[in-house]
């Protein structure tokens, strides 16, 4: 399970909607499966069906997360015209090139579908060696108060 506050989820949705019709992307810093910080990233290859985080920005954010004693608990990207499920390219890119070794095995890949922009669908996945499994997302008012499951 990945826990996120309502306000952080709203920031992610705002970012994804602002990026429409292109894909938007970001990194989630936190600990123990709880998102504590949302980093909106620059999509260096913007398009309705592609994203690639700006590499230098990604490096700086990963460093910021380490220095804050947090972990990269997840990342997000939008599917402006697709469902909230990882595409075959999303899965392939989650692995080290030419292998089935996950690049970020402990991170949850959050996907925001904007098929219905008035009501975006948000789902989380873990991409492990050859398997994709859904991880439930819990949306709370505050991090110490798990109330609803999304």
């Amino acid at each position, binding site marked *: 399970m990945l826990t996120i506050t309502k306000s952080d989820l709203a920031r992610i949705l705002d970012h994804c909607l602002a990026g429409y019709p292109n*894909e938007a992307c970001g990194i989630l810093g936190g600990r123990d499966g709880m998102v504590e910080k949302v980093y909106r990233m620059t999509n260096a290859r913007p398009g309705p069906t592609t994203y690639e985080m700006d590499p230098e920005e990604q490096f700086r954010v990963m460093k910021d997360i380490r220095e804050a004693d947090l972990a990269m608990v997840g990342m997000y990207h939008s599917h402006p015209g697709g469902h909230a499920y990882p595409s075959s390219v999303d899965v392939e890119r989650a692995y*080290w090139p030419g292998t089935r070794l996950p690049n970020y095995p402990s991170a949850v890949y959050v996907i925001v579908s904007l098929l219905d922009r008035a009501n975006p669908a948000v789902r989380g996945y873990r991409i492990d060696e050859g398997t994709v499994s859904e991880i439930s997302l819990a949306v709370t008012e505050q991090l110490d108060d798990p109330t609803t499951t999304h």
Partner: protein
Amino acid sequence: MGVKVRIPTPLQKLTNGKAEVECSAKNIAELVDALEKDYPGIKERLSEGGKVRRFINIYVNDEDIRFVNKEETVLKDGDNISIVPAIAGGRLKNEVERLGT
């Protein structure tokens, strides 16, 4: 003295679980060869035909080698090298109908 190399999780099987290793090399191409001597198999993971693989980013201290001198980027003692997989995705045009993603 040499350089410190931060090894990403998917390559740590090759470095016996080590997240950071030390090496001595004058540039990135030499570094890849030096790593291969200590950790056989790592060169093929990092590069293809002498070039760093697409979707793998290498930083010397805080600089992306693509904006310095790529594989020829010069290293000096005490440099911190980071190997970082890109975070990227997308979908094939014909995947739209097939998988509905």
